[in-house]
């Protein structure tokens, strides 16, 4: 069981990491991070702050683009190119396939996030050696990765039944809505229309409140103390959504026939 899961995950990792477009994205991320040096130099005493903000933004954006575009074709490509026939005629469970695919892409995004993170930290090290800065940056990158895991799971879920184009639209749409979930809930509360209130509540509870992650990252970067409980709560909260999405993706794959 363990060997099968590892095999599928590593195969997916190999597939994505050997795609040259990935390196173009990483190179682009490096260049934008370097642009932070220029922007920082023309600011008044905000050089590190600009570098940090721009660096984190690019890690999140590049990671997100890769997660969406690779994730949405993850299962679909196997069906379209009929490699799924070779996989599902081996003694493996459908959940191993879905989870293996997810883990493979998660590993790939982890490697890219690590590369971009190390580059950013290397540049920041030219300006400061404060351990507070580095600890805050590492924690922030960790939370960006947690959010990216949710995006990968969402993309994997859609790729089990929708075309890549539809999956991209659904994934990006829900990802953005998940960022404004709390505003939607507030909007629903002040609305006089009952249907809108219920609709906003459904959206809020169906999707994770990613704005919480953004707020937490803001607190970390402002060097505010964050309790272990809130970090743990947010991590479990996101992992819960991952489990739900992957369970649904497995259920859909189990019901499918391969014509």
């Amino acid at each position, binding site marked *: 069981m363990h*060997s099968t899961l590892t095999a599928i995950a590593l195969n997916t990792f190999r597939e994505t990491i050997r795609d040259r477009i990935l390196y173009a994205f990483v190179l682009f991320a490096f260049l934008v991070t370097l642009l932070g040096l220029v922007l920082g130099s023309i600011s008044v005493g905000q050089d590190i702050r600009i570098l940090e903000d721009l660096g984190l933004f690019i890690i999140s954006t590049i990671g997100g683009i890769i997660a969406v575009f690779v994730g949405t074709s993850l299962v679909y490509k196997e069906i379209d190119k*009929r490699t799924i026939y070779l996989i599902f005629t081996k003694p493996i469970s459908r959940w191993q396939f879905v989870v293996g695919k997810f883990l493979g892409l998660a590993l790939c995004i982890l490697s890219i996030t690590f590369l971009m993170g190390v580059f950013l930290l290397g540049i920041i090290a030219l300006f400061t050696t404060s351990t507070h800065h580095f600890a805050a940056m590492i924690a922030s990158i960790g939370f960006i990765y947690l959010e990216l895991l949710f995006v990968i799971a969402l993309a994997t879920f859609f790729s089990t039944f929708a075309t890549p184009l539809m999956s991209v639209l659904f994934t990006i749409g829900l990802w953005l809505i998940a960022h404004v979930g709390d505003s939607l809930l507030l909007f629903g509360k002040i609305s006089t229309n009952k249907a809108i209130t219920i609709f906003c509540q459904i959206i809020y509870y169906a999707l994770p409140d990613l704005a919480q992650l953004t707020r937490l990252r803001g607190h970390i970067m402002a060097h505010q103390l964050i309790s272990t409980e809130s970090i743990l709560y947010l991590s479990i909260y996101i992992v819960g959504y991952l489990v739900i999405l992957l369970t649904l993706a497995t259920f859909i794959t189990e019901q499918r026939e391969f014509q």
Partner: protein
Amino acid sequence: MTNGVIEISALVKDHVSPFLQKRVRVLDGLTLTVQQGQTFGLLGPNGAGKTTTIKLSLGLLKPTAGEVKVLDCPAGSKTALSRIGFLPENPYFYSYLTGWEFLDFFGQLFNLSTNQRKERAKELLEMVSLTDAAHKPIHKFSKGMLQRLGIAQCLINEPDVLFLDEPNSGLDPIGRKDIRNILLKLKQAGKTIFLNSHLLPDVNELCDQIGVLHKGKLIAGGKVASICPSGNYKDLEQFFFDVISSCDKQSQPKISSSS
């Protein structure tokens, strides 16, 4: 009488179009048995239901009615799949892998140890004459090489039963001869082979028993030795044409002489 290795009884498969819910019967009460060590050739025109039969036998499709048992286990069960090898028609392989990595990956899906996988991959690449191309990316393989790699992949678990869907289609005469020789070796090794093919000379040379499928029904069958007593494939060709045309004549609507 002993139980067959492949037992198909009263198998019915309807394809239902997703939007209009239009039902088309692809297989209509197919019953056949393949005994151990036998090479069975399923013949039939395009769209007769040959590939559907294989997919149902492997659990890629679910039957509308009837049953398929392979090695006394329900089709698609892990126990059956662990002893089956399958080569799909016009297979697509992971182009980013090398031949060696490809076999290693499928070895992992059968939970083979690293040493077992190494030995098995070496042995199989030698058998299909791909040792020199072992570390070449698959996208550089010719059609014949891909087909031979496909056969190697379906033998990684030393299966008892092989399902081969058009193993010789699209190959040049040399490629066809190579595949035929490999299949003859497997037949001599006592493997049970279920083969779909349009190429009657190959069927004549390889198969012990044939069945003719037309419009989802098994309309004829028998031992190749009795159909082609001279050993010439032209007899098989004539037999095939005769049964198809007589079936078509019977199913034609009768037109009264007065009209």
